């Protein structure tokens, strides 16, 4: 019953969030600010993780399929496929759920306990729309760029690690990453990214918006935001993969 209550309240909050904004210009300005806060400021961690993850994927692929029967380009091919299909859209989204999700829940939760959301409501501002919609738009518009950068850096990291350590030749790796390239896989990854961005922003905002209590409860909301976003992302990832790839 409690789960149904939360699901119902989540959808009611979404309805409120997507209702007519008071001043579109102000919402757009806030969206740009959120893109900077939630997107641009996540570039560093995304770049670092992607580069090293690509390097690890390449080394592990090579060490696990080290057979004279398997051609050299397979390493690059496997690195590219695992990066585009799963690592960049899903793992990066899970990491962003930790960084961005906790940020959203903590910010909105603090505003709730400090009565700032009540202040907005009393002024006649649609607090849900004003606070949450720019975050949803910001993440949905910017996360695909983060994921594309992640794809590039992961494949590049694989190249540096593979060629640098001498376990794969430059020619083989470059041949591998171009082998049987299916552009639909990139589309599939970007669709997943946009859906995951929506989940991160809305689930985290929901946790923050309904925080009751003080600073301890803000911390609890923040933790719940990360956990629930991750759980929902994993379930939806499975559903989308079945829906879009099979």
């Amino acid at each position, binding site marked *: 019953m409690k789960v149904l209550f939360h699901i119902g309240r989540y959808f009611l909050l979404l309805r409120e969030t997507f209702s007519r904004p*008071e001043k579109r210009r*102000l919402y757009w300005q806030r969206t740009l600010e959120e893109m900077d806060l939630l997107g641009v400021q996540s570039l560093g961690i995304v770049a670092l993780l992607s580069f090293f993850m690509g390097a690890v994927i390449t080394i592990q692929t090579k060490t696990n399929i080290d057979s004279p029967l398997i051609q050299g380009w397979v390493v690059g091919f496997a690195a590219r496929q695992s990066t585009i299909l799963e690592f960049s859209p899903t793992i990066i989204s899970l990491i962003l759920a930790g960084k961005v999700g906790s940020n959203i829940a903590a910010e909105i939760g603090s505003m709730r306990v400090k009565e*700032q959301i009540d202040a907005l409501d*009393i*002024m*006649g501002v649609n607090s849900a729309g004003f606070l949450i919609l720019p975050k949803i738009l910001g993440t949905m518009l910017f996360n695909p760029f983060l994921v594309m950068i992640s794809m590039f850096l992961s494949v590049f990291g694989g190249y540096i690690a593979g060629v640098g350590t001498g376990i794969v030749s430059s020619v083989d790796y470059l041949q591998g990453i171009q082998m049987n390239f299916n552009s639909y896989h990139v589309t599939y990854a970007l669709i997943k990214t946009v859906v995951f961005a929506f989940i991160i922003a809305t689930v985290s905002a929901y946790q923050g918006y309904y925080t009751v209590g003080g600073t301890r409860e803000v911390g609890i909301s923040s933790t719940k935001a990360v956990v629930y976003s991750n759980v929902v992302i994993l379930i939806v990832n499975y559903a989308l993969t079945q829906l879009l790839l099979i």
Partner: protein
Amino acid sequence: MIEVVGVGKRFGSTQVLTDINAVFQRGKVNQIIGKSGSGKSVLAKCIVGLHKPEEGKVLYEGRSFHDMDRDEKRQVRQEIGMLFQGSALFDSLSVLENVMFPMKMFASMSKSEMEDRAHTCLKRVNIVDKDKLFPAELSGGMQKRVGIARAIAMDPKYLFCDEPNSGLDPQTSIVIDDLIKEITDEFQTTTIVITHDMNSVMETGENIVFIHKGRKWWQGSREELLVSSNTELNEFIFASALMRQVKKAMGL
């Protein structure tokens, strides 16, 4: 004028307010007083529409707030200014931006007009040359004054103050009380102050509603307050040593 008619509010199985009837007059400092946990803040939240009462109505100039549609409610809310217990200033905005915020959301004014209006409001509460500071850089009293400036930015018809003196020293409390009184007189607002500070009640209270155990126990002026024979009210107002001395000095 705001009228509260038969308002009742429950949270789960707990009845917090029962059959509250009160009239809050224009141009007066109306006060809701009572012990902590008596239900005065819940009553205030029902009046401003943050809580929906299960029973009764809240009438703004005769129109039931909870029966209004979304746009009508929004319109009434734009006529409300509220000072919160913790000021509720937006942390990420500067003093000037906080005061300009309601204008940015609702007024059709140029940026310079908004800045002029914000400066006028800030000057009215004696905050000068603090435009660029953030709420965290201000003292509690200053935050309250900026909160008042934001509350009056849109020329409100109704002014709500939730425990405006909490956490302030006696001298600053008097400044805030005087400010609320002056603004009420100047703008002829229907002002409702929620407080349990007896100094504030004696200083500014013109129409006082005493809430006890979720019910309206007593209503009257501050002069009537001192001579009331209501036992619970007397227990509340004469709990402080200062008020007992006042009582003794007046020979009551």
